[in-house]
C-alpha cells in the first residue's frame, strides 16, 4: 500500500480532540518523516498521551485529519483500523501488559491476534524468545506481569511493541517512575530498536536527558553499546522536540532550538533536568 519513500509514517492536520469540559488537543499539526525521531514533552495533562492514541485510532478526533502511512485513519471503521495498527507499535504508559497472561503470552499476543501479521504458528515461540532476548528478559517466559519489577515490566512491554517489527513505534513515558539507571537502559533499548531496524520513533518524556540521548547518540551494533553519533549535526536534525501545553503544540524544533528557546514554559523542561 502507500509505503513509497516520501510518505511520512505519521502526519497530523489540525487535529482537535474535545472531551466534555476539556480540549485535550487543539488544532495540532505536525509530520514525522520516515526514520526520524520525535520527542514529545509537556506538563501532565497537556495531551501527549491523547496524541499517541489518536495516531493509533484509539481516540477519534473531533476534527482534523490523521494520516498514518499516507492513509487518513479518521475515515476508517474500527474493523479497518486493525490493519493500520499492526504497522504501529505502542508502549503504553503503565506498560498495559495483560495481567491474566504470562510474559510469553503477552509478547506473543500481537503475533497471534493481528491478522495482517502473517506469522506461522510454529514461528511464534521463536520470535517471542528473540524479542525477549532483545530486551534482555529471556528468562521470564513463564512469569506473570505482577511478578516483575516496574523496569522489567516496561522492558517486557517494549518486547511486545517490537515483536512484529513495526516501522513506526510510539513510546508513552517509557521511563516514568523508574530510577535513572533503569531509565537509561530503557532509552538505550528504544535507541537499539530505532538504529538496528530503522524504526520511526516517537517518545513521550519529561526528562530532557532522555531526549538528549536519542538526539545525540546511536546504538552501535558491533559493540552493543550506546555511542555518540558520528555526524552529530545530521542525527540531531533528524530528531525534533515537540512541546505540548494544554492541548496545543507550542514548540517544534531541534535540540539546539530547544536550548535557545526563551519561552518560559518550554524553558522549564530544559532547565529542570540540565
Amino acid at each position, binding site marked *: 500500500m502507500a509505503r513509497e519513500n516520501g510518505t511520512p509514517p505519521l502526519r497530523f492536520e489540525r487535529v482537535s480532540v474535545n472531551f466534555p469540559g476539556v480540549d485535550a488537543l487543539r488544532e495540532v499539526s505536525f509530520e514525522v518523516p520516515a526514520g526520524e525521531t520525535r520527542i514529545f514533552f509537556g506538563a501532565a495533562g497537556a495531551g501527549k498521551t491523547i496524541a499517541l492514541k489518536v495516531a493509533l485510532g*484509539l481516540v477519534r478526533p473531533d476534527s482534523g485529519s490523521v494520516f498514518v502511512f499516507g492513509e487518513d485513519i479518521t475515515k476508517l471503521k474500527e474493523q479497518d483500523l*486493525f490493519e493500520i*495498527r499492526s504497522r504501529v507499535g*505502542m508502549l503504553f504508559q*503503565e506498560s*498495559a501488559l*495483560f495481567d491474566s497472561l504470562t510474559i510469553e503470552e503477552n509478547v506473543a499476543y500481537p503475533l497471534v*491476534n493481528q491478522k495482517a501479521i502473517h506469522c506461522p504458528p510454529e514461528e511464534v515461540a521463536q520470535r517471542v524468545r528473540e524479542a525477549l532476548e532483545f530486551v534482555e528478559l529471556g528468562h521470564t517466559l513463564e512469569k506473570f506481569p505482577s511478578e516483575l519489577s516496574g523496569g522489567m515490566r516496561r522492558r517486557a512491554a517494549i518486547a511486545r511493541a517490537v515483536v512484529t517489527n513495526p516501522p513506526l513505534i510510539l513510546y508513552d513515558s517509557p521511563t516514568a517512575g523508574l530510577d535513572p539507571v533503569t531509565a537509561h537502559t530503557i532509552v538505550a533499548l528504544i535507541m537499539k530498536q530505532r538504529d538496528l531496524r530503522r524504526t520511526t520513533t516517537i517518545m513521550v518524556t519529561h526528562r530532557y536527558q532522555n531526549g538528549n540521548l536519542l538526539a545525540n547518540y546511536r546504538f552501535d551494533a558491533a559493540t552493543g553499546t550506546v555511542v555518540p553519533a558520528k555526524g552529530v549535526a545530521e542525527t540531531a536534525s533528524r530528531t525534533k522536540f515537540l512541546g505540548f501545553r494544554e492541548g496545543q503544540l507550542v514548540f517544534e524544533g531541534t535540540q539546539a532550538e530547544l536550548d535557545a528557546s526563551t519561552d518560559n514554559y518550554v524553558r522549564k523542561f530544559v532547565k529542570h533536568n540540565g
Partner: protein
Amino acid sequence: MDFLKKWVLDVQEFVLLSGRAIANVFRRPLYVDDIIVQMDLIGVGSLPIVLMTGFFSGAVMALQMSRALAQYGQVERTGQVVAITLVRELGPVLTALMVAGRNSSGMASEIGSMKVTEQIDAMRALGTDPIKKLVTPRVVATATVLPLLTIIADFTGMIGGFVISYYLLNLTPLQYWTSVWQSLEYNDVGQGLIKPFMFAFAISLVGCFYGLRTTGGTQGVGRATTQAVVVASVLVFFLTFFITKIFVGSVT
C-alpha cells in the same frame, strides 16, 4: 435537563454495546476458551451460594405458607405453594440477585481495572475487539449458566420445603411431592426459564458496560463495581415484573 440528556446518552451507549456484544456471537472468532473460563467462574463459583439461598428460601416459604394454609385446613397443599412461588419467581430472582452480586461486580471490577491500566486500549492496539474478547464470552456464559443455576435453586428449594413439610408439618413424602408435581404447568416452567435467560443478559451486559466506561483510577473501579451491582439488581426486578405481566396476561 442535562441530567436527562446524560441518561438518554447512557442508555443509548448501553443499547449499542448490547447490540454489538450479541451480534458478535455469530461472528468469527468466537473465543471458546474465554466462554468456558467464564462459565466455570459464574456457574461453579456461584453453586454453593445458590444451593444455600435455594434451600432456605424453599424452607422459609414452607414455614410461612403452612401457617396461612392451616387456617383453611389445607396444609397438605404446602408443596404446591412452594413449587409455584419458587419456579415462577423466587428461584429465578434470588439466583439472579446472587449472581448479580458476585458476577456483575466481578465483571465491572475486572474490566474496569483493565480499562484504567490501558489494557483495553492495548487490546485494541494489538488486534482484538474488546467487546468480542471480553463482553461476548461473559454474555454467552451467563446466558447458558444462569438458567441451569436457577433449575438447581428451584430444586434445592423444593427439597428445603420438603424438609420442613416432613419434619415440622408432618406431611408424608408422597403428599408433598404429589402436590409439587401436580401444581406445575408448562406455563410456570416456561416463565421460570425465560426469566433467568433474560436476567443473564442484564447482569452480564450491565457488569461489562460499567467496567468499560470506568475512568478515574482505582477509585473509579470501586464506583463502577457498586453501580453495576445496583443497576443489575434493579433491572432484575424490573424485568421480572414485565415478564410476569406478559405471562399472567396471556393466561387469563
